[in-house]
């Protein structure tokens, strides 16, 4: 069934991207673990972790493209879903610390001991099990998205107003998670993780494993997104994006479609957050910051909205630039980012992927027209076009 969906959408650049992700899931860990440090092809562990982090950002960008690029919902709050997934993973990692914390309490994380709590709050139950925590990393963002979307889409909030309330959503969560009595570590968040699934979280092998998991999760996310967008449902989404009210008059319940893609997208973002946290070693309320969500929008815009592959490229490139800038010229990063956004909006409305598409189309047309110079007049595409009814 899935294969049939894919036949329509898994073409060209998407296939290349999928192959790249699968290859790097094997090669990068191999080049890191199997080669001695002196070898020219050795990939150092810090680079593995950095790339792993970029891939989780790419998964967040992909999730955002699904709602923004294909359904026209400009979310300025997607970091909220990412952070919720991250907190679920963080809670699992906290429970794994056990009695190795500073206070040595066998059950309570350090911050709870510090707050003089004497038992684990009920919502921390179950997080000692990895599978439960992973489930929550998907389900918690899904529930938030579903409830938020249920109200927003039914009351037909769209456009700028919707974007603003998504910002408000992530901002409200930011404030909530800052509070110590929420039981999520307040300002400091969750950190000092020791191990994951019994493996030392700092070891090279674990880092390589987390990288591979991120690459595979992104590959799976891409396949899912292609399946969704290539299906008839994907065409309905584009219809909603381009002419919402027309779609309603065809009998489609637009709010159900939005709710579906919004919830799926939130789960992808949650998974991205869950993979992000063990690689960076901390999750704190700062991940809910409105600016994070806006940055994600920029990655998508730079790579090419509505292309699936573009946002992945955009997330990796922009974050690569960010890593470079924050090391070399930290005070200029925000200006560079803002400038990039303005540049893309003005000159590259379809992003890097859009630019590449136009360029290859032009090249193909030029090649085609060379042997048959008389036959170039007027036609815009390379395919022969039927004559319009006259």
């Amino acid at each position, binding site marked *: *069934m899935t294969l*049939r969906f894919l036949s329509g959408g898994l073409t060209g650049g998407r296939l290349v991207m999928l192959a790249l992700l699968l290859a790097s899931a094997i090669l990068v860990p191999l080049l890191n673990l199997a080669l001695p440090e002196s070898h020219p092809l050795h990939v150092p562990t810090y680079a593995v972790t950095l790339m792993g982090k970029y891939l989780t950002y790419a998964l967040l960008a992909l999730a955002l493209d699904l709602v923004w690029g294909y359904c026209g919902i400009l979310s300025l709050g997607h970091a909220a879903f990412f952070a919720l997934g991250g907190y679920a993973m963080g809670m699992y990692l906290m429970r794994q610390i056990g009695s190795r914390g500073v206070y040595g309490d066998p059950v309570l994380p350090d911050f709870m001991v510090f707050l003089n709590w004497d038992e684990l709050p009920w919502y921390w139950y179950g997080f000692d099990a990895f599978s439960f925590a992973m489930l929550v990393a998907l389900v918690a963002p899904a529930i938030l998205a579903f409830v938020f979307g249920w109200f927003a889409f039914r009351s037909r909030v769209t456009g700028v107003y919707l974007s603003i309330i998504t910002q408000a959503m992530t901002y409200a969560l930011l404030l909530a998670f800052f509070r110590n009595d929420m039981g999520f570590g307040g300002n400091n968040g969750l950190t000092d993780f020791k191990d994951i699934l019994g493996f030392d979280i700092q070891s090279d092998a674990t880092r390589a494993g987390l990288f591979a998991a991120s690459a595979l999760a992104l590959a799976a996310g891409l396949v899912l997104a292609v399946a*969704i967008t290539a*299906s*008839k*449902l994907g*065409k*309905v989404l*584009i*219809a909603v994006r*381009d*002419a919402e*009210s*027309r*779609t*309603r*008059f*065809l*009998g*489609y*319940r*637009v709010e*159900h*479609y939005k709710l*579906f893609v919004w919830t799926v997208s939130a789960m992808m973002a949650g998974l991205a957050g869950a993979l992000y946290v063990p690689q960076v070693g901390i999750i704190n309320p700062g991940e809910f910051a409105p600016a994070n969500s806006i940055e994600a929008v920029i990655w998508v815009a730079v790579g090419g909205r509505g292309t699936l592959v573009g946002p992945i490229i955009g997330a990796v490139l922009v974050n690569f630039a960010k890593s470079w800038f924050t090391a070399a010229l930290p005070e200029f990063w925000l200006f560079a980012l803002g400038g990039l956004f303005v540049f893309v909006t003005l000159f590259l409305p379809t992003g890097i992927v859009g630019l590449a598409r136009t360029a290859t189309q032009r090249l193909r047309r030029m090649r085609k027209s060379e042997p048959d110079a008389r036959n170039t007049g007027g036609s815009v595409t390379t*395919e022969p*076009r*039927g*004559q*319009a*009814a006259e």
Partner: protein
Amino acid sequence: MAKAETLLYLDGVSVSFDGFKALNNLSFLIGRNEMRAIIGPNGAGKTTMMDVITGKTRPDEGELRFDGKIDLTAHDEAEIAGFGIGRKFQKPTVFENQSVRDNLMLALKALRGPFATLFHRDDDAERSRIDTLLATIRLTARRDDLAGDLSHGQKQWLEIGMLLAQDPELLLIDEPAAGMTDAETAATADLLREISKTHSVVVVEHDMAFVRALGVKVTVLHEGSVLAEGSLDHVSNDRRVIDVYLGR
């Protein structure tokens, strides 16, 4: 036409926008398999009437019934479309970034839920239905082109094709001949006459030659209510109709 059973029933429908009455105590009936032409000056309320029937605008008062018992004022756009009322907009509205074929595919009568469309597969029956529609609206050669690349007249036809794909009981068609050549207009009139053999159709149009070609009962709207009703010859000899509309 024999005294057919009533399909659409409007009684005393009023709509106002900031105190301005766009529809004012509007009442009329459309029979099953009847085609009706609606004419009237700009601002008479023709488009607003379609908005009210399709759930886009809620009437302030009045009764709106479809197929005997369905109270249209209690339902939204998607539900009303599901009852079998399809609509073509005054400004042609197609999905510009999708192919002509996909526009028709999206309109085809089928389950409308997200899970039904997620697992939808096209089959031979669907493909041949689309081929038939493409031939009917003369866009077979443009099937793979983006709808946005069509000419204005062709978009009008595509939208009529989408209406046919929905296979509704009642078709509301707002100014189909706008932007068409004379030949296209004549062909559109032929097409609508063909459709009206098996569907109820309400057509709003300014083009008198087109309305004459339809050869059906005409309702004249003015300031949100019915000014006159009858054959085209009958209404065009009506003093008030000449004063407010035809005479100008």
